[in-house]
């Protein structure tokens, strides 16, 4: 038997760790440094397009959780067909099935991810709160047109390229 196990494995391991001392750390200092997320990110808070929406409630049926409620009514005084949408983002699991199901591309996933709320009732959003705005950017999930306008995703693959041996 070869005389082994006299510490050569430990020495090799020590070599690997000391090598890392001279490499660049991978940590991202989050609030200061931000990476671009994927163009297709399924961020929180749905974005709703009130122009395209017909109130067909396909999204509501596709939702596996039942977080979307859609009610339509005819407003006789104004002679208008109203869509009343309520999304309980607290229940939303960000699966994107509603976006996929919508036949009119009237609902989008949100692009942002820092959408924590202080109060529970702020989580339940309806109608005008769901419209796109500066803070509610639409994500390119299932809509390549929007995806092309969003910044390119930062890849860790390209960030860590040390170790050329």
């Amino acid at each position, binding site marked *: 038997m070869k*005389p082994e196990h*006299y*510490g050569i494995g430990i020495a090799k*391991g020590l070599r690997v*760790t*000391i090598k890392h001392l001279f490499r660049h750390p991978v940590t991202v*200092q989050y609030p200061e440094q931000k990476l671009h997320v994927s163009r297709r990110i399924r961020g929180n808070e749905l974005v709703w397009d009130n122009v395209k929406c017909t109130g067909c409630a396909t999204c509501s049926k596709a939702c596996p959780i039942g977080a979307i409620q859609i009610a339509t009514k005819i407003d006789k005084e104004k002679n208008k067909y109203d869509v009343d949408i309520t999304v309980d983002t607290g229940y939303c699991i960000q699966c994107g099935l509603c976006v996929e199901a919508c036949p009119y591309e009237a609902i989008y996933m949100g692009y942002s991810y820092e959408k924590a709320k202080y109060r529970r009732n702020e989580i339940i959003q309806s109608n005008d709160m769901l419209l796109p705005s500066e803070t509610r950017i639409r994500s390119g999930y299932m809509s390549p047109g929007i995806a092309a306008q969003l910044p390119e995703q930062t890849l860790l693959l390209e960030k860590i390229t040390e170790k050329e041996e």
Partner: protein
Amino acid sequence: MMLESYALSSIGSALKPLPADWPGGFWWHWLVFTIIAILFVLLMVLFFTYFERRAMGRLQARLGPNRCGPFGVIQPIMDAIKALTKEDIVPYNADKVVHWLAPAVAFVPVLLVFVVVPFSNGAMLADLNVGILFVVAISSLSALGIVMAGWGSNNKYSLISAMRAVAAVVSYEIPVVLSIASVVLLAGSMSLNDIVLAQNIPFILMQPLAFLIFFIGASAEINRSPFDLLEADSEIVAGFHTEYSGMKFALFYLVEYAEALLLSVLITTLFLSGWRGPLLPPWLWFLIKVVAVFFVLVWVRTTLPRARIDQLMALAWKFLFPLSVINLVITAIEVLAWPGGVPWPMLFVNIGIMAVLIVSWSRLFKFGWGRVKVEA
């Protein structure tokens, strides 16, 4: 850091070796060095916690603490404030007196040991002529605190940890003392200051095997990785300090790092020629060496997995103990063979012996044992 270095430089140079005409004589010396020792331990522990987290972060391709103050240097102070302001929880049914006493009992011995550590030539609180015996005797006392903590917490994990502590400390004391004995043989004195003075060649070269045994044994005794079985977080949660919070936990934390500091200081003194070095002032050499040794500790901790308790015991009794006995005998013969002078042959002979012993003994290394037959 700065304060203590200033104090060391001014007082350390003034106090060489202990001026008899110092006003107040002994008492001034006692006061000054007590303060220095306590400050040294506390400040170095603060620095070490920062340094360890930072170094470990970098070794793991992370950054480590970098938020509080420039480069995160205030982090240990913030941690201390947090620990002080936290609620102190004593578990229900705990042995309250023991639970309360344990952190103090663990901390005092560690602090005591620094009495005999020379920061510069003769710059120490007490130049005991049995210094090394004092170190060995006192330092293992802190295991008592750990046992008290384990027992007093009324927690099974803590109890397991306490039992491990007793076993580890008792068995590792022997190889550690034997390896120190060979150093003492070479130096011809038990005073730490004299040991440093004897190291024209650092003893790490003269006694590589003793150094290795001391390093392994002492890190097992102070439960540094890979022998951190007392607080093996993946097995017994946090070991003896599972049930401690707030300041009491902080004291244990302090003990842990003070022990690591003690280990670094002892290795510096015993094997790395202490405060001696060219160009730079002695106290700076001392600090550099201490930090360097601590870095090796951190490095090892980052890399190695943890041993098991029976493997820990086996390592002490089957590996380190015989090797340290052999090393002691060889050293004794060598000291007789080359009395005085610079024993260069000894250096090469010892390195050769170390290599041969380690390779041959490692043949005994076996896998897969340790299962206990359990009757159904």
